[in-house]
């Protein structure tokens, strides 16, 4: 029993709950200045939903610093994601200490949250009973957490037809979430987490296939397969490819399907639209996009949901570069601050991009991050009581283009207009000798 394992070596094996906890503690002990462990809440059986945070100032949101999250193992028997995230935490700490500039820059400029397991209860069941022989486990009383989120897709589809908001659709959070008895404690905890931290980019890790899946997951018509594009379809395709292209298995065009009769006709270059693959209502991915500013994709990382332990290293090798590269995608598009004329931050400002029917909002410090692919855009910032400002901007591949807004409040504008009027009147009177 290694009381304090600070050797930094990654051992590619399965981690049960205690082992996972200890592994994260090890990373924290090895890199205490750039990491922090916290818990988002408890699972049904009382296990902590542990998160390891990595940034140059752990525990603090630095204005302008984008927030990123990885969530694994939301299906308890899909084990690879959980393990990869534990290895990733160790890896980032090791690389940081060894002076890897890319990793150092990433950790200094991003706040990375890693939750290896959203369903620790499910994992314990899967691991204890079946290990690799039986990798499909269902539980009588189990809830599929990826169908447990409030279904906001339906609302947005309605709004598309009848008019209505295109973002932040979770109204009345207390009733919708805290008083909703159908939500599992894990779901509730994660929803609170999403509301508390202004996440910009995220991925949730699954198993059972190999593809990067992006919104929308639920089909518009309700049919089982239908391409269901979100307003940010182009951005999501770029994000998904940013993951898949570094994973040799995922991006292999000749990869055989996981099971002989699988229908992976919707997979192209290792990515797929959710609805085109199959409809999923109540999933966490779409919930992120429609309730908050966070763009999330779903990563399926292994044909085998709970592969033998000796396969884990190989999955790490396949995914390591993708995992790091995907985090870097958070630094794309436009980002900046919205302030009033006195320099005070204006939170909850809507940032709209012309041609994309999905707005995001500024966080408490007036900071925002709008992911976009390269191109020219018209971006506007509007807040209640303020005059909207529109700016043109050219966006490159990376890094994000800085774009700040100074908004004039309506009151100020009225005052100005009054003054202008007075000036004009004065001038007129002088000229006309009133």
């Amino acid at each position, binding site marked *: *029993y290694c009381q304090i394992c600070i050797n930094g070596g990654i051992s590619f094996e399965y981690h049960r709950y205690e082992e996972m906890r200890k592994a994260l503690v090890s990373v924290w002990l090895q*890199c205490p200045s750039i990491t922090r462990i916290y*818990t988002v809440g408890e699972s049904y059986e009382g296990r902590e939903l542990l998160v390891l945070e990595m940034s140059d100032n752990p525990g603090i949101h630095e204005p302008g610093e984008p927030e990123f999250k990885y969530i694994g193992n939301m299906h308890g028997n899909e084990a690879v994601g959980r393990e990869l995230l534990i290895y990733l935490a160790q890896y980032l700490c090791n690389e940081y200490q060894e002076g890897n500039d890319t990793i150092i820059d990433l950790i200094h400029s991003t706040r990375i949250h890693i939750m290896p397991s959203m369903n620790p209860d499910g994992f314990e069941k899967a691991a204890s009973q079946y290990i690799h022989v039986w990798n499909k486990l269902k539980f009588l009383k189990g809830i599929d957490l990826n169908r447990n989120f409030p279904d906001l897709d339906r609302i947005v589809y309605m709004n598309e037809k009848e008019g209505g908001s295109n973002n932040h659709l979770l109204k009345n959070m207390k009733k919708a979430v805290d008083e909703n008895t159908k939500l599992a404690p894990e779901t509730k905890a994660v929803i609170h987490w999403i509301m508390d931290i202004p996440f910009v980019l995220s991925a949730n890790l699954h198993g059972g296939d190999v593809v990067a899946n992006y919104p929308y997951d639920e089909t518009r018509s309700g049919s*089982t397969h239908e391409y269901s594009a979100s307003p940010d379809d182009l951005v999501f395709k770029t994000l998904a490819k940013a993951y898949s292209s570094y994973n040799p298995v995922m991006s292999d065009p000749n990869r055989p399907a996981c099971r002989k*009769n699988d229908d992976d006709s919707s997979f192209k270059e290792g990515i797929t639209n959710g609805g085109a693959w199959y409809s999923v209502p109540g999933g966490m991915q779409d919930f992120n996009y429609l309730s908050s500013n966070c763009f999330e994709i779903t990563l*399926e990382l292994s044909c085998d949901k709970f592969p033998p332990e000796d396969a884990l290293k190989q999955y790490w090798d396949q995914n390591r570069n993708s995992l790091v590269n995907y985090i870097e995608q958070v630094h794309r598009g436009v980002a900046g601050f919205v302030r009033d004329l006195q320099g005070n931050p204006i939170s909850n400002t809507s940032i709209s991009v012309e041609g994309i029917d999905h707005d995001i909002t500024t966080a408490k410090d007036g900071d925002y991050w709008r992911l976009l692919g390269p191109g020219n855009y018209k971006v506007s910032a509007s807040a209640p009581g303020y005059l909207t400002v529109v700016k043109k901007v050219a966006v490159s591949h990376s890094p994000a283009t800085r774009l700040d807004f100074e908004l004039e409040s309506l009151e100020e504008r009225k005052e100005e207009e009054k003054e202008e009027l007075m000036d004009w009147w004065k001038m007129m009177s002088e000229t006309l000798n009133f």
Partner: protein
Amino acid sequence: MASKRVGIVVVLAVISQISAFPTPAGPDDKSMYNRELTEEKPLEQQIAEADSIKKAEPKPTPPAEAESNSEDDDITFLKSLAEKSKESNNETPISDSVDERYGTDEADTTKNRRLADDYDSTKNGMDYKYQDDPESFRQLDGTPLTAHDIVQKIANKIYEEDDRGVFDRIVSKLLKLGLITDSQAETLEYEVAEALQDLITKNAKDNMIGDLSMDYPVNSVKDTQNNMDEEDRPSRRYDDEDEGDDDNGGDDDNGDEEREDEIRDDTVRAEDSWDAVSDGNDRNELNPEDGLQDLQFFPNFYRLLKSLDSEQDKEERETLITIMKTLIDFVKMMVKYGTITPEEGVSYLENLDAMIALQTKNKLGKSLVPLSITPPTGKALDDDDNTKTEAANMQKEYETLKDSTKDVQTAAEISDNIAHEKLLHFCTDQFLCSVEDYDLSKLRDFMDQQVDAYIDKGILEKDEGDVIKRIYGSL
């Protein structure tokens, strides 16, 4: 809920003689959405259709809800199928074209599916042979298997082939042909999974000792991480009881007591069975049922035991085992009464095992020669000496254990020192070593604070936190 799926399994298991199988549908998520086709024909209706083809047993009473299907239905169904196949005696295999037919249009399979055809074995050719084929669902004497048997058979096959594909093949065929619904497939899965679980547990127990002693590296003390994992898999009980969870303080006591009793009882049995065991059945040499579960975690001790496998060594062996078990019990007692922490107990025992490795090396170097060369009388003498030497060694160790607290603290100190050294590697971390900020007391306070917060939130255990604080305090 019990066994309605069994009846269906029989039908399709019969059909499953075929070699080429469609593999089952994709991830969990999918199964719920591609299966609407199977909802349409509830089991009873299918049974009814099947029965209508040929003379049949009395039909199962159609229940109001599908869920209330009873054992009787299944047995009836089974019987009816058995009779049907007895009659048909058909050799025609199902051709690949049939597979294709069912594989193409998943969306609207109601049109394609002809259940009457499926059940008419003359057309589909259920290849029913009465041999002892693991895929067949009959016993050797031709009587149909019970639901339980079938589940067991599937589980056995999966276990042997180490391949869940066995189940998938059967179920996907069943589902594709619409003979079971999704929920029935789930139920079947549960049953088989449970059976499989039992198999794994049972076999793991039987093979545990043999397997573990193969897997352990020689320097098991250093390779602590591996130790933990090995311990986890075969005998979680050990891990649970010695984890030292604060919550389970009470439970640990009970568990320890029970195990102590069990071991004492089993020790008696073990001694009785030595003769049989030493007949050279290596894998089951140390049957865990004989209460030697504890000893499996001491690979060097095992090696030592193994080297004493001749008739003359029997007494020495028994002495060794007794002494070792006493040591283990002693340590367990100390943990139970809080004299040492579980971690310290474990590391003490691991150190002990390492010491045994050393002793074994020395001993084997000396003893093998006299044992093989000297004549019976001389041998007996040497044996006694060896036994005494070994016993003396063990006794020495045992006596050092009596001064337990000191020894155990040494072990703890050793692990602390190692950790201390590793902690110094922190200096690569800029927080700790940056010229401007380096202030040991500040660091200590910061870590103390963090540790307390983590203990509060359940991220760290109290004893882990104490160790960390102690180490930082000693910097």
